[in-house]
């Protein structure tokens, strides 16, 4: 049975003319981990806040555990939320923060104590119970915020960029901890993040937002390998997919005045097309240094070194494209190079604004 269902949900803020989000359709299975990604201002937080009951739903229906929840107050939704800011109560100790929700719900002290110990054990907060939030590190605060949410035994856990202000190392650790927690407790989680790696590693499914709408929902593999449009293809993946605008004509792809004969790795879409955008990810382009059919001709601009991988930056028909090369590769700039796409990893998109995927 679906645990959380959004049907045609939309939100227009009272002081605004346009909808911040519209026509959101999502179904989460019990225990699923769904991540919302998208550019800033696309409506991820708004969606989360509507599910939490912090924002009124302007149109559409929300169901939690089979019950229509549009008009339920936040406390009756059986949810917990961890804010990006953590929102710890600064005047209370760690222990008081964690059990605050239980106290409000009238859970007896002995039970509260038991839950507190459970949470401190789980989240490695032992010995910090009597500190105040100001005396904690960022990672510890984050875990207190998580603990406060988890002791409520919520059915649905909402997380709005909870790791965004941590340093890279702590972030990686918390990511692993989150994953383990999710497995261990079987929670239904809706997670908002700007971090691609978090989205790819944590999620069962990813919902990609663009400008107040969901453009694709799918497993990390689906959104990565099978994007529905140019936006998703460009948004998911880092460094981003290379795009070449042009058109198909007489067995060739013409981009920026360069004619690339089709064939080998460069297979055209089956559906007929004129103006198109060609998309290939950097890891699917192999540089060779002699003329090759089905390869994009260019000149080496420079090499971007990221440590584990290097990216060869090549000027192709006036735009800069990236191709992944083994670390330590040396090439002098200005050298002619041909980029060979990997067969089956070439994406075509309609050349219009919408950029629909052509198959």
């Amino acid at each position: 049975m679906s645990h959380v269902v959004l049907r045609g949900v939309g939100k227009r803020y009272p002081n605004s003319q346009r909808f911040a989000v519209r026509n959101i359709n999502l179904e989460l299975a019990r225990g699923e981990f769904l991540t919302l990604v998208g550019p800033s201002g696309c409506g991820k937080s708004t969606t989360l806040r509507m599910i939490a009951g912090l924002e009124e739903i302007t149109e559409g229906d929300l169901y939690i555990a089979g019950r229509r929840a549009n008009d339920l107050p936040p406390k009756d939704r059986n949810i917990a939320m961890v804010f990006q800011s953590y929102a710890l109560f600064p005047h209370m100790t760690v222990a008081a923060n964690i059990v605050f929700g239980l106290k409000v719900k009238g859970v007896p002290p002995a039970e509260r104590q038991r839950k507190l110990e459970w949470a401190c054990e789980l989240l490695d907060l032992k010995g910090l119970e009597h500190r105040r939030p100001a005396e904690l590190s960022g990672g510890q605060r984050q875990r207190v915020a998580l603990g406060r949410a988890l002791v409520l035994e919520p059915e649905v856990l909402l997380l709005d960029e909870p790791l965004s202000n941590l340093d890279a190392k702590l972030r990686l650790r918390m990511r692993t901890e989150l994953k383990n927690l999710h497995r261990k407790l079987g929670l239904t989680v809706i997670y908002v993040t700007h971090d691609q790696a978090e989205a790819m590693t944590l999620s069962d499914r990813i919902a990609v937002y663009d400008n107040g709408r969901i453009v694709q929902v799918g497993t990390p593999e689906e959104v990565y390998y099978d994007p529905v449009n140019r936006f998703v293809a460009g948004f998911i993946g880092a460094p981003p997919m290379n795009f070449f605008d042009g058109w198909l004509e007489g067995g060739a792809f013409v981009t920026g005045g360069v004619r690339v004969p089709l064939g080998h790795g460069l297979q055209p879409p089956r559906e007929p097309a004129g103006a198109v955008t060609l998309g290939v990810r950097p890891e699917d382009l192999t540089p060779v240094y002699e003329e090759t059919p089905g390869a994009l001709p260019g000149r080496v601009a420079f090499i971007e070194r990221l440590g584990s991988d290097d990216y060869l930056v090549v000027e192709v028909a006036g735009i800069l494209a990236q191709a992944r090369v083994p670390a330590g590769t040396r090439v002098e700039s200005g050298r002619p190079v041909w980029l060979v796409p990997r067969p089956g990893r070439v994406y075509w998109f309609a050349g219009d604004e919408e950029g629909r995927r052509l198959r």
Partner: protein
Amino acid sequence: MKRIRLGWALGLAVALFMILFPLYILFKYSIADRASIVTGGRYPEPLWPFAPTFEMYRYLVSRGDFWAAGVTSVRIALYTVALSLTLGAPAAYALARYRFAGYGVLIFTLLSLRLFPDIATVIPVVERFYKPPLNALPVEVQVALAHTLLSLPYVIFMSIGVFQGIPKDLEEQAAILGCSRLYTFTRILLPVAAPGLAAGAIYTFLLSWNEFIFAYYLTFTNPEGATLPVYLLRVMAWTPQKNLLAALAVVISVPVILFSFLVQKYMQAGLTAGAVK
């Protein structure tokens, strides 16, 4: 570190002198013996009394009416603080969180009473207190209410900033955790705001403690409500010697310092530290 420029140093010295000199004079007189103030022009007044004495202080504390006025003053000031905060804090919270048509007008109206000199507003206000039902209240409460009228606009104004400084996330989190609005206000917002509200409390205490005009008119016919400033006027009416007045003035200042000190300890920095990243 840069050296302080000479001009600044001079300015600072002058300012310090202007603040400290009257205090010095006041204290000097309050412990002066008779010969040090009544010189009859035969020699200049000494910079420090010939025979410092706490005689005037002793005399003051031996007087029952002085103690009565002191206790009245403290009580009225505390009532005023309590009233101003109980009325002012929720009002400030509402004004901090909700925007509505006429917001600016409302704020201006709140402050408008204080745009007039007290000597002008005292007439309509006191007139109310002379009539039923307010005249049935104990006179201390009447004075405290009048003082609240004076302090409330500022308390609200100061507290709006305090509440605006508290992240909205805290309230939303509380709502998710199951708190009612009232519970959130009393258990989360007030404790978090307390250090900020303390400034308003000090201001109110000082205002009530110093206030003369309203207290004078309200206790005109009802001397048991007389506060220390009113008492000071009564003592002056007998044209006593300078040292008694000075001692009285010093004594009046002590509770102010004491109260500010107590409350200030509460005003530690970083009221929302750790709440949000």
